[in-house]
């Protein structure tokens, strides 16, 4: 009778069973934990705690109450508006452009350049983008002068200005649109040809197919992408800073000003504002993840 012994596990062998005994394996990710602790978690905690503390060091909720100051409310509202508008515009047009090169019967070779360009354009945000738009639609911009000299319409006399909220939204779309294309292209690919054929086979016209099958299937991805775009714009700072300097109340710019000097006259309030931003972003990313899971489940 031979006793069958379990294979001796050396210290190196992967642990197949979830650690029922004390396992020190987690030490393997210690460097990562230390690093993220020092440079990510610690700063955040600092801000969180600081937002609940007043000038004398005692706990308070006053900072959050102070968020209702009119200038801060305006900043929240403006930032949300800009983010929402640019996200919706980016979603709508981005979807149309992605659809155009993937499903609308245009030549197949158009897709790769468009996607590569979308990758570049979505990274072209910040200072260079703001400058590029100043060169295009600023008071002496290419398009501005073109319209004045060719059609006699001087935009800035008509009330348009790049340095307004609308102008900022227009600029934001430049990196929102490509991001949308990058996100939605795989989802459109995921529309299996079989579904369209099954719908056709059962008697659906193309419009019925889109209404009952394709759009509902794409909806989680579309909504998720829109939310991601919203978050993307909400946290943006460099573009707005370069373009408007601070004239348009954008939260990120305001926090930047706070970093440079205590313009809010209350550091705790600055922390609370930062926390407010994080909460909004957190909710946005959370919704995105939920919608992504739903989309994945359906495309199985």
């Amino acid at each position, binding site marked *: 009778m031979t006793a069958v012994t379990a294979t001796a596990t050396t210290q190196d062998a992967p642990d197949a069973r979830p650690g029922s005994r004390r396992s020190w394996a987690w030490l393997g990710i210690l460097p990562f934990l230390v690093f993220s602790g020092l440079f990510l978690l610690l700063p955040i905690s600092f801000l969180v705690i600081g937002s609940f503390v007043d000038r004398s060091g005692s706990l308070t909720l006053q900072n959050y109450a102070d968020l209702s100051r009119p200038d801060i409310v305006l900043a929240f509202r403006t930032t949300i508006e800009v983010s929402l508008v640019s996200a919706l515009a980016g979603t709508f047009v981005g979807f149309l452009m992605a659809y155009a090169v993937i499903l609308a019967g245009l030549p197949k070779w158009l897709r790769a350049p468009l996607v590569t360009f979308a990758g570049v354009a979505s990274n072209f945000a910040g200072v260079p983008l703001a400058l590029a738009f100043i060169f295009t639609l600023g008071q002496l911009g290419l398009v501005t002068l073109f319209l004045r000299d060719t059609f006699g319409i001087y935009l800035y006399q008509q009330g348009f200005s790049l340095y307004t909220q609308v102008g900022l939204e227009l600029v934001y779309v430049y990196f929102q649109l490509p991001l949308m294309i990058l996100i939605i292209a795989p989802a459109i690919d995921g529309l299996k040809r*079989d579904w369209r*054929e*099954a*719908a*056709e*086979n*059962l008697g659906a016209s193309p419009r019925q197919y889109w209404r009952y099958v394709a759009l509902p299937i794409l*909806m989680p991805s579309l909504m998720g992408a829109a939310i991601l775009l919203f978050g993307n714009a909400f946290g943006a700072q460099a573009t707005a800073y370069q373009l408007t300097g601070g004239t348009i109340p954008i939260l990120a710019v305001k926090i930047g000003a706070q970093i440079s000097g205590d313009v809010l006259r209350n550091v705790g309030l600055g922390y609370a504002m930062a926390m407010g931003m994080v909460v909004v972003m957190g909710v946005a990313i959370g919704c995105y993840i939920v919608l992504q899971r739903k989309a994945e489940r*359906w495309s199985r």
Partner: protein
Amino acid sequence: MSAQPAFLVLRGVRKEFPAHVAVQGFDLEVPRGDFVSFLGPSGCGKTTTLRMIAGFELPTSGTISIDGQDVSQTSPHDRNVGMVFQSYALFPNMNVADNIGFGLRVRHVKKDAIRRKVGEMLDLIHLSGKGGQYPYELSGGMQQRVALARALAIEPRVLLLDEPLSALDAKIRVSLRQEIRAIQRQLGITTVYVTHDQEEALSLSDTVVVMSEGRVEQVGPPSAIYGTPATAFVARFVGQLNVLAATVVEPSVGRISVAGQEIVMRKPLPGLVAGSSVTVAIRPETIDLDAGADASERLQGVVDDLQFLGPVIRVRLRLDGDGGTLQMDTFNRPGLVPPELGQRITVRFPGSACMVLDGSSGAQEGP
């Protein structure tokens, strides 16, 4: 089945792609209520032909008609044929009931009528009560049944199935294919079934169409496809086959010599003269160790492989005189003493079980 005019007719159907010809000159007449299988290896054109019947591909030339009506150029959503896809293609955003009712909804059928029909269909596929579930909650077999119900709900004139079982486990495949056949018989609906699995094709169909490289090799009932294969391809593709190279001795009675051992096939070999080469084939199950009533012919050889397959014992022997290898399957009867490796044995078979593959010399092949 009867002397009715054919319900589904394909005449001279041909499909050319820029790179190759997928289907060449396909002719077929399917009686109403018949279950036809398109059987063949990948790339033989069976799926392309099916898709032309469905309308997803347009034939380069030729006509397709259903119930006397030419549908060759009709768009898919006007043809009223039901299609079941290999990947099920259930709409993930709708539950089972909505999936099944989709075809009716698109035709603007009233809600209660839809509900009634969906209920009927759910009973038919034995999934009553699962109407509220979503595709991702169901197993592969269940999803395929829903796909079937969805196609049948619109009461199509023809039912098309594109390798519907190939994504499923072996056990489910067997039970589900019987269910499909039972439903088809119950509804009496003309059905075209595409598969590369010969067991499926043979067990389910009234008629089998064997295809290869875009051409029809043979059309006929399963017994004919198996028992009297019309071409070498059909003989090789369907069932197991022993292929032997032989020399003709006396063409009038079919006496041939396999490396010195003579057997008589009891059928004349027209067009061949003594001394010419011929390739013949014998099915493994027609060969046995004992002499049966008409197992009059015999071959001798040395056992060089023995496989115990449960109900069957598979013996491979190397024929004397370098005549090639022969594989035979014999039932594992109680009391049977199986031969041993290296043992010299004699096997017997009826001469009529030999089939001529072609009259030219073919390379010796083992099964």
